[in-house]
């Protein structure tokens, strides 16, 4: 019958196609990297956010900063500024720009000039100057700039000539340069902004980005993929890969499956580490990140305005099981905000004991002998500081049940979660903080200062004048020992007041196929694909065969370790 002939021919031609096209696919995939990301970016301008997902997708791929961190010691090193100079009083800082920096050339913008001082001044003034024509575009919120108090700190930015600019500060600030090197301080194109003003499409500056980074945006499909092309005129060597694709896969299992099926080259926040390490063609990597996962209270709501209640809950949470069940014992227990690797870490702070008797006593003292009911908000997605907040919430639920506190677990989609948290609708919550730079201030100010309570990045709404004074003092001195003492005092206040209970400092994990070479992870800030290249692939079939051999080693069982 004709019908069947048709099908057979169809199938045969399909087979032939599959057979003869091996070579072409290989060459294309050799020149590209697919990264399975855990979420969609909110915007393409890192100035507007603090979310790690957005930073990962934008900062290091699309943009450059004046200065950046380099090497294992994370020294400040030149980037768009080839050098800089700080006056002795620490109030004037001059940057000398490179003269060979080209902006992206894309479908929507053709640059006519190289980077100059105007671009730098435009980028900073957009965030700092509330009168700036671009300030209110995309909402007018610049959380990092506000948290570190840049608008008070920076008096003005002076253009000395086309390639020299000077920051005038109102007072000396030891963390200023460190803050300038963070992922948020990207340089945008003033020429592009002028073009958009003419086209009356100002908000495109954050959705159709133009930067100087190693990759340029080719295509973005919301919730599905981001496609980057190499920036051929990058001021350093162009990137080694031609195409970088972010495959947005929020499901943990989905990402792991794509890794195991070789559909992703690199995967963010992998689960099931044992499974990955079993496979010889995949590798798991971790970087000691400066972060802290914590359990926070909304101190503006009763009964969490009572210090005794907060202390009682701290005694009732068994952190050891949390570390075991949620982090599989691979994280370090947090006793204070700072991880061990920070220079301001205070080893005199000891582990808080797990003591139900004491917890009940404190609760009785606070007048809650009968206990109470509360909501616990758990984040819906994986973050480096907390790989599984829902599981953690379930464990805390059963811990607190023992001191008669009934816990309802609540979780929203990630962006909704953050918005509602900002509005203070929660009782208690599980969240964390990843440092943007190595200076310890990056933990104290943005997480718990009164200013942060106003901008919403301090979701505990805890505001303590004594604490604020101490952390401000710590910023005004350059003497490391003196600063260390201030931070020790600040941490003592936190241990007494308990606005939040630090739980763990964890590593940031990533898994990749062994074909991908080059560093991607950094101890802080977002990932960076500039250095990445791909090993020449062997024949696909032999690779698959090899893999199936690897997967079924003769005498080992694929259960749990």
């Amino acid at each position: 019958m004709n019908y069947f002939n048709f099908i057979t021919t169809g199938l045969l031609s399909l087979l032939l196609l599959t057979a003869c096209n091996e070579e072409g696919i290989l060459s294309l995939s050799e020149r590209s990297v697919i990264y399975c990301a855990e979420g969609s970016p909110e915007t393409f301008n890192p100035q507007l956010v603090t979310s790690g997902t957005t930073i990962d997708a934008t900062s290091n791929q699309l943009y450059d900063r004046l200065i950046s961190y380099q090497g294992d010691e994370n020294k400040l090193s030149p980037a768009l500024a080839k050098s800089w100079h700080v006056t002795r009083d620490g109030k004037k800082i001059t940057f000398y720009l490179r003269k060979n920096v080209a902006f992206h050339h894309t479908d929507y913008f053709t640059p006519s000039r190289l980077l100059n001082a105007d671009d730098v001044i435009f980028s900073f003034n957009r965030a700092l100057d509330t009168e700036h024509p671009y300030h209110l575009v995309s909402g007018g919120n610049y959380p990092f700039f506000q948290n570190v108090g840049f608008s008070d700190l920076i008096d003005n930015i002076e253009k000395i000539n086309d390639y020299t600019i000077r920051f005038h500060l109102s007072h000396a600030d030891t963390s200023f340069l460190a803050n300038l090197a963070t992922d948020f301080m990207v340089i945008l194109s003033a020429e592009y902004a002028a073009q958009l003003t003419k086209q009356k499409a100002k908000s495109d500056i954050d959705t159709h980005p133009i930067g100087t980074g190693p990759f340029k945006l080719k295509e973005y499909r919301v919730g599905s993929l981001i496609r980057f092309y190499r920036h051929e005129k990058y001021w350093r060597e162009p990137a080694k890969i031609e195409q970088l694709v972010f495959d947005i896969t929020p499901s943990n299992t989905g990402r792991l499956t794509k890794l195991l099926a070789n559909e992703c080259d690199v995967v963010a926040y992998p689960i099931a580490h044992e499974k990955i390490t079993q496979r010889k063609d995949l590798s798991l990597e971790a970087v000691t990140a400066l972060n802290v996962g914590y359990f926070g209270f909304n101190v503006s709501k009763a009964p969490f305005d009572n210090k005794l209640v907060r202390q009682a809950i701290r005694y009732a949470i068994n952190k050891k099981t949390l570390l075991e069940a949620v982090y599989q014992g691979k994280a370090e227990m947090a006793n204070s905000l700072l991880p061990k690797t920070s220079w301001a870490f205070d080893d005199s702070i000891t582990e808080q004991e797990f003591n139900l008797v004491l917890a009940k006593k404190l609760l009785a003292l606070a007048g809650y002998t009968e206990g109470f009911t509360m909501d616990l908000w758990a984040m819906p997605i994986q973050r480096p500081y907390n790989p599984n907040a829902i599981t953690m919430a379930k464990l805390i639920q059963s811990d607190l049940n023992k001191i008669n506190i009934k816990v309802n677990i609540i979780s929203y989609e990630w962006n909704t979660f953050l918005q509602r948290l900002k509005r203070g609708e929660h009782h208690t919550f599980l969240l964390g903080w990843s440092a943007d730079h190595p200076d310890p201030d990056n933990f104290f100010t943005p997480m718990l200062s009164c200013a942060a309570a106003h901008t919403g990045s301090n979701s505990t709404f805890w505001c303590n004048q004594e604490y604020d004074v101490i952390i401000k003092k710590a910023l005004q001195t350059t003497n490391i020992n003196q600063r260390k003492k201030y931070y020790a005092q600040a941490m003592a206040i936190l241990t007494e007041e308990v606005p939040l209970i630090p739980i763990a400092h964890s590593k940031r994990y990533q898994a990749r196929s062994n074909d991908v070479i080059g560093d991607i992870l950094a101890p802080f800030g977002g990932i960076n694909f500039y250095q990445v290249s791909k090993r020449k692939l062997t024949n696909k079939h032999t690779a698959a065969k090899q893999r199936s051999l690897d997967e079924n080693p003769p005498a080992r069982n694929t259960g749990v370790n």
Partner: protein
Amino acid sequence: MARDKIYLEEIFPSPFMQLWLIFRKTPVAMVGFSCFIFLIVLAIFGPLLAPHSPVEGQFDMLLLPPAWHVDGNVSYLLGTDELGRDMLSRLMYGTSLTFGLSFIVVIISLVIGVIIGSLSALTSGLKSSFLNHFLDVILSIPSLLLAIIIVAILGPGIDNTVWAVVLVLIPQFIHITRYAVKEESRKDYVLASRLDGASPFRILYYSIFPNITDRIMGQATLAQSAAILDIATLGFLGLGAQIPLPEWGATLANGLDLFYIAPWTVYLPGLAILFAVVATNLVGEGIRHALKLRKER
């Protein structure tokens, strides 16, 4: 059923009994039937028999494989999940949720559907035509899609899932009852009792219902297998049973993250769903087979 022995039917087994007599002779159907009874017993007594709590975990027993595995532990026969909760207990509790609820759902929608269906069979004209069109529209939308629509309106949760599935199943019962009643009323014995002056409701209750129970039963088994799958699918999609509830679909979704390191957390709930649906379908097959044989006699 005490009534006047006008007809000599009493010496014959009732249509329902006839069906059972044939049904009993089909071994496969009987296997399905005993599994079905087993599941009902489990749904009622499961919570009493379960060895552990389905919600509270043992934190020193995380991700224990099933007992037959080298690392298994006999007191956790089917292993544990990521919070050290016993899989066997979770599945037993889940029986009351997935299977038990689907059973209740079917009974509720059966009662409502049969009432509306038989009432509508007595109407005719414009109302009937409207109902026909309406049923056509509703029945052309697949049950799962309709359930998703209703849950989308009501919001996620196990109670809303139950209402959604009830609403979804009602039209099917209306349709079959209406059709069966209309067909039956054309028969002579109904005419006879109508000529005797029986009221429509009396005819419906005494003459028609006993003769259509078997067909409604057949539809009920179909509805039940759809209900199990719908509840489990909604649970799997996170639209049904919420976090700690050990509903089978939700348990399976919970195991997804562990699929590659603890595959039993995905295999077992899936097998449980499959088992329940196969058992239900075997019973349904048996009933339909018996119906056919009875007709052929």
